[in-house]
């Protein structure tokens, strides 16, 4: 499994919450700037309305107070005018030079000002107005409004954002984090042994399925597929193993079988014979060995060709094999035309009898080869083969090679006596 590079973990919820907060702040700023702009316009209008209001309500009263020279009433009236939040400073310049003011004179420099002439309630000679009222807006009122609005927006958005973030956190925890963590844990715990364990998210039942359900289904599908895949692999492995075993068996067979005759080969003999000797030695059983050598085989080969020679060898081998106790006695090709017959649990005389029987019956085996050229109409006697036999029994404690050497010597003895005979000795 390729290892992923280690990156710091950050949950989707925290990313979403961050994004939400950023978005909320941006929205808030946007709304606040729009609100500020609207508020500004509104305040302008409010100031104008306040001016109109003053012109309609306070000015007549001021006119009367000015006419009646009620300076306290004038001052009180100005105070009342400046109590309007839109108006920060009011100054009344009377026709006689007297001046009244209320509010903050510093605003005169920064605020918007309007002038209203105060008409005389009674005609006066040479004077059109009793005085001029100058009203200055209150920038603080706008700031205060903006502050209030800003706070309102901030509070509203904060609450909304907090709510949304809480909801996101909760929903994601419930809907995503737990199931995903479970899936992740499950996936990291998955191993062939646990593969059959189904994924369980334990989610409350819902009317609709969602991505997590899809994920769950996907995981289950993956699990099933993996399981099937593993299962198939098992079958495949079993099949291949069987094939291999067959092959091995074949190889093993080939490795101990002589390719030409189908008997054990020499290597098999060298493997098996010591085991037989061991057994005989351990249990004190009898064991005999027959050494068989096809007579004049070289000559035959030269005369009739190798193919026929081979057939001779095959025939001899199959004949010998057929005449033995199946599953007990066995034959191995020792050399070119030499065979060793191993007879476990067999005393020398019984081995001798077997050898005699083979000696007699071998030549009677016809050579069924079409390749033997026969002159037409000629009564050529069929080709026969014979063999010389050396028989010996195992002597307690002797080695394989000693046993074989003795049997070999006995064959040699049989050859020298004129072939096609059995020589046996313990």
């Amino acid at each position, binding site marked *: 499994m390729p290892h992923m590079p280690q990156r710091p973990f950050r949950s989707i919820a925290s990313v979403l919450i961050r994004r939400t907060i950023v978005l909320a702040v941006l929205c808030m700023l946007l709304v606040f700037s729009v609100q500020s702009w609207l508020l500004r316009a509104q305040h302008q209008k409010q100031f104008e309305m306040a001016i109109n209001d003053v012109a309609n309500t306070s000015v007549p009263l001021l006119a009367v107070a000015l*006419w*009646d*020279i*009620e*300076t306290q009433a004038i001052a009180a009236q100005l105070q009342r005018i400046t109590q309007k939040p839109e108006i920060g400073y009011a100054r009344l310049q*009377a*026709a*006689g*030079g*007297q001046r009244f003011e209320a509010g903050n004179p510093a605003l005169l420099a920064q605020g918007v000002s309007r002038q209203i002439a105060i008409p005389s309630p*009674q005609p*006066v*000679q040479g*004077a059109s107005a009793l005085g001029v009222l100058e009203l200055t807006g209150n920038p603080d009122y706008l700031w205060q409004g903006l502050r209030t609005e800003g706070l309102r927006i901030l509070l509203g958005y904060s609450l909304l954002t907090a709510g949304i973030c809480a909801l996101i956190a909760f929903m994601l925890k419930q809907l995503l984090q737990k199931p995903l963590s479970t899936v992740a844990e499950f996936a990291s715990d998955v191993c062939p042994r646990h593969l059959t364990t189904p994924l369980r998210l334990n989610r409350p039942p819902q009317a609709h399925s969602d991505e997590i359900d899809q994920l769950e289904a996907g995981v289950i599908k993956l699990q099933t597929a993996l399981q099937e895949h593993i299962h198939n692999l098992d079958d495949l492995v079993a099949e291949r193993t069987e094939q291999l075993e067959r092959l091995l068996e074949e190889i093993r067979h080939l490795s101990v079988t002589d390719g030409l005759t189908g008997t054990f080969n020499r290597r098999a003999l060298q493997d098996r014979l010591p085991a037989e000797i061991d057994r005989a030695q351990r249990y004190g059983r009898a064991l005999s060995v027959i050494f068989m050598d096809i007579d004049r085989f070289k000559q035959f080969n030269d005369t009739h060709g190798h193919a026929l020679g081979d057939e001779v060898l095959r025939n001899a081998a199959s004949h010998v094999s057929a005449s033995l106790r199946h599953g007990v006695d066995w034959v191995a090709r020792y050399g070119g035309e030499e065979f060793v017959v191993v007879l476990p649990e067999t005393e020398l005389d019984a081995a001798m009898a077997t050898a005699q029987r083979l000696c007699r019956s071998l030549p009677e085996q016809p050579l069924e080869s079409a390749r033997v050229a026969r002159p037409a109409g000629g009564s050529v006697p069929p080709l026969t083969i014979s063999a010389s036999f050396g028989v010996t029994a195992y002597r307690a404690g002797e080695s394989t090679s000693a046993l074989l050497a003795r049997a070999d010597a006995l064959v040699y003895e049989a050859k020298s006596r004129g072939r096609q005979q059995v020589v046996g000795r313990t």
Partner: protein
Amino acid sequence: MPLWAQAQTIAFINPGKKDEPFWRTVSESMHAASRSLGIRLEEQFAERQHLSTFTIAKAIAARPAAQRPDYVILTNDYGTGPELLRIFDGTGIRSFMAFSTLTTPERVQYGGPREQFKDWIGSLEPRAQDAGYLTAQALIAKGRAMRAHGPDGKLHLLAIAGDRSTNSSIQRNEGMQRAVRQAPDVVLQQTVYAGWSRAKAQEQMGWLLHRHPQARLVWTGSDLMAFGAMDALAAAGAGQPGSTVWFSSVNTSLQALQSLHSGQLAALAGGHFIAGAWALVMLYDYHHGRDFASEGLELERPMFTLFTPAMARRYQQRFGQGFDRLDVRPYSKVLNPTVQRYQFGFAQLL
């Protein structure tokens, strides 16, 4: 023990200030009258703070019965009368209104003496119209004599009145207006209300000089307001009282009498301060069994006198050092069985 065996106690809530010439004169003349009648007079000044009259009244009404006065003399300055009457009604202290009684609309609402307010036994007012009428008439005559006409051939008059709500003030203004109506050559330019205050009158006069430069006659409702207006004239350098601008006023303060002498005041009416003393006479008689109901529960009597310089001299000789020489006993019906009708003028005292 008969009632009269005990000294009769009367409380007076003086609406003015202790240092206000007119109300000080009222105070002194009442104390002199109470001494001559053997009345125990208790006086408290509201110092022109009309809300404090209620405080004073409530404190008097809240006293234990033994310490309460038999009578209380009230004024209806700034419309405080009905509330004062309400405070004392049902306490057993009998109320009497002097100088100014309930206005006509107030009377419609609250009724007259001994009606809604059972303990309100009556009132005595100087005929305030006289003060306004007499001084305005004399001022107009002076203007005509001095040829104080404007370019339009009219006499331009300014009026500095006391207040808009006190009955006596309204009556004085009404008297002035009546005199103006009777004089076709006079234009009343404007009436302002200085609230009996010298400072406010000075301030308003400053404005008026600028607003009505052609006005040469100034009618004032009280001596202090006249002096305030003269101060403004001097401050503006707009003329001389008695030579380019003529003033009339009301009240017999020492300074007012001296100004009449020097010619700074063209006309002065006064003497109505005596209403307090006359009220004591009525209450003395009432207390001793002679109810004034036979003459009327609410008396309005001419007390204002238009002073000549000679009268002013006589007044100063007689009362310049105080009112020790004031003896009101000859005017009581209880003490003088021959008196059939109260003689509540002022000139007879000089």
